[in-house]
């Protein structure tokens, strides 16, 4: 039983806005399955008393003072933008995904 199905790979590809062909789906599903199975061996070692790790460094409460620091200027901010208009980033129209 593979740890990731072809449908799941298709779903993830859609979420990531990747155009993947049918052939590629077969290929990637197989490859991802191998990767996931390898990573899953970690789970064999972890027992109930070992919590999942999200951060490798044992630090908490790293805060910044609420003090304003210089921002980029508008020109600089837009310097790398493929398109700009009226001081704003210009993007293609957005279809069917009103947030």
């Amino acid at each position, binding site marked *: 039983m593979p740890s990731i199905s072809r449908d799941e790979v298709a*779903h993830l590809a859609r*979420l990531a*806005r990747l155009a993947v062909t049918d052939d590629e789906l077969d290929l990637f599903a197989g490859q991802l399955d191998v990767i996931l199975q390898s990573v899953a061996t970690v789970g064999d070692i972890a027992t109930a008393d070992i919590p999942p790790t*999200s*951060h490798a*460094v044992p*630090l*908490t*409460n*790293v*805060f*910044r*003072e*609420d*003090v*304003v*620091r*210089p*921002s*980029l*200027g*508008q020109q600089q*901010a*837009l310097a*790398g933008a493929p398109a700009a*208009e*009226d*001081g*704003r*980033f*210009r*993007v*293609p*129209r*957005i279809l*069917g*995904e*009103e*947030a």
Partner: protein
Amino acid sequence: MTSVDELMDYAEVIERFDPVLGLEVHVELHTNTKMFCGCANLFGGEPNTHVCPTCLGLPGSLPVVNGKAVESAIRIGLALNCEIAEWCRFARKNYFYPDMPKNFQTSQYDEPIAFNGWLDVTLDDGEVVRVEIERAHMEEDTGKSLHVGGATGRIHGAEHSLLDYNRAGVPLIEIVTKPIAGTGERAPEVARAYVTALRDLLKALDVSDVRMDQGSLRCDANVSLMPKGTTEFGTRTETKNVNSLRSVERAVRFEMTRQAAVLAAGGKVVQETRHFDESTGSTSSGRTKETAEDYRYFPEPDLVPIAPSREWVEELRGTLPELPWERRKRIQQEWSLTDAELRDLVNAGAVDLVAATVDAGATPAEARSWWVAYLTKEANARGVELGELGITPAQIARVVALVNSGELTNKLAREVVTGVLAGEGEPEAVVEARGLKVVSDDSALEKAVDEALAAQPDVAAKIRDGKVAAAGAIVGAVMKATKGQADAKKVRDLIIARCS
């Protein structure tokens, strides 16, 4: 999307269904800087001038948490009677939408900083409803999109969109209620009262500007109906773009009547996001949630966990100010208000204004009579909040002082206030410009009285004969001559003195 919805009569809705609400309120904190970078947190400004590599999501940039924002989040949680997490993390909410240049929003997922609270909400007639709070979590606001080429400025039909990221990364607290059931026909009112109470609380905490018109307080209203006698929640819709307290009430009421009509016709309510239209008071279909959102949340690797010590939490509890309901109780006692008087004061949204007017020297009764009795009508007539009328507590206090010193009559005082509301400047300037001072100069008054007596010798004779009632005609003439700016009683006394 332009189909006209069938609506059920509200009374029938209540007869047949029980509404269930869920309210999500987003509040922008008014910290100096953004949530994860040192850019200024300011409303408006030239587009893309409060941005840096971090809030633009440029490669290699790293976020650092604003400590002040965490403090505010904890204080909000405490004021909402929540438990404060001993340990919690930020999470990435992944989605592709240009309002977030990072392609994810930094939020909290299953570990909110505050949870399990409640807020007591007072309805217009004094009934108290306890609204349970599911959670309050920290996140960041998104940028602002401008859709170009669409007929209405909305996304449909737009040719392209323009993005301003000044708001991207502004600290945001999302406060989510547990399902609010059992409020029946009062559900729309409960929704408005809840957001009002929350706004007052956040204002007292001094953590946000809480301006619904500017978007620093935003409410999404989830509404569903269940047929009377059943207990399973129906399919809900989530209405966005609800930008005023009144709209919260209208949006909930509209959704109740719309969903009831759908259900009564044997249809199914579609789970979707709906958009509230202020001008029509109706909601329209937005994005259909046919595919359940898949945000692939995972713990934010670039931010370490937050573990507020119990000492810190208690220290912050100590900084909580007098909260609105405590303040109301104190004010009621100090000003000797009846329950009904207090309710009128609160419902008018005038507590702060009256208190500030009292601080500026007026008595509570004088201040209340202006704000609650007079200015509320003016605000309603103009469709604005009391605080947006354009007159300050200090100005009202000065008008009151002018009345008390005899320089203005009540009638003239109203004209002065009308002038201030019309933008004619300070009360004193209006008095000057409109020539509204009471004529108290005795010689000027005596002259006017003498002229009036001379003009009506027969009336003067009657008064001299002791027929004091006849003086009314002379008083009228004097008031007319002084354009109503004399004190009528004083004029009358003067006439009688001149004729004896």
